[in-house]
């Protein structure tokens, strides 16, 4: 697999990444699986967290290690350019590691299940505050329909007016690919300034 890349080409290869965020069960892994050229892979990051001030854990060490699983997929965009898609861990308690995952991303997709809007509040909040990373909202059409219009969702989630809201079907390859295209178009349309720090 991937062995059509000769060693001479190897040195000029570059990579880039986009982050797939959203609530638990919103369709992040389905989206990655629909577009990836490899079956979604899970890798694990061992994170060390300073333990909270639990009053009942005096016998345990000061630090807690947690293993966090992340899904990712890959797209070869041309001979020298590869794009990776990384799914953020769904549970809110792992979001302390988002900064590591998001750093250096060209953009993010927040997958939203319109039946459970509250599940993506934290993801929207994160990307609204972190203005360095352009993001789009992808409304996953479960059962082929949406509970709300994009305008209602923009208002409910307090999403900036310029952020694209796209409805799609995470199971459909072309529909999911269209979300990635819209994200790249949006990234390219945004003014870039040198003060943005990666």
């Amino acid at each position: 697999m991937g062995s059509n890349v000769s060693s001479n080409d190897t040195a000029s290869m570059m990579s880039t990444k986009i982050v797939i965020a959203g609530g638990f069960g919103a369709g992040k892994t389905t989206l990655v699986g629909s577009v990836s050229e490899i079956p979604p892979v899970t890798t694990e990051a061992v994170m060390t967290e300073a333990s909270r001030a639990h009053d009942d854990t005096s016998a345990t060490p000061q630090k807690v290690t947690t293993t966090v699983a992340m899904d990712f997929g890959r797209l070869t965009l041309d001979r020298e350019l590869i794009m990776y898609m990384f799914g953020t861990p769904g549970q809110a308690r792992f979001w302390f590691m988002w900064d590591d995952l998001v750093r250096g991303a060209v953009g993010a997709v927040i997958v939203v299940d319109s039946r459970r809007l509250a599940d993506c509040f934290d993801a929207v909040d994160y990307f609204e505050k972190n203005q360095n990373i352009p993001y789009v909202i992808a409304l996953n059409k479960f059962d082929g329909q949406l509970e709300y219009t994009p305008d209602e969702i923009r208002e409910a989630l307090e999403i900036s007016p310029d952020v694209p809201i796209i409805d799609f079907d995470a199971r459909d390859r072309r529909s999911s690919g269209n979300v990635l295209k819209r994200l790249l178009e949006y990234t390219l349309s945004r003014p870039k300034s040198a003060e943005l720090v990666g």
Partner: protein
Amino acid sequence: MVQTLVSTADPGTEPPNNLMPESQNIYRLCREARSVAEIAAELKIPLGVTQVLLSDLADQGLVYIHPTITGHSPSENQVLERALRGLERLFQ
């Protein structure tokens, strides 16, 4: 970064014997360019450990760390446009 591609500086060679077994495995995998995340997943080593082993290999000049496109600088727009054209080809 997790998406950064790594390849061995000299693709035809066996890893030096004085490397740890984990580093030798990484070296063999990187005969083809691979991302940090793929190396971690393939060898079942946590991401953080993989990053440390890779940076040691890079310090010794054994692996090459490829450029990563973040889109934060206007000079990268050309590459982002290439990425967009690639997506258009794949999902037309």
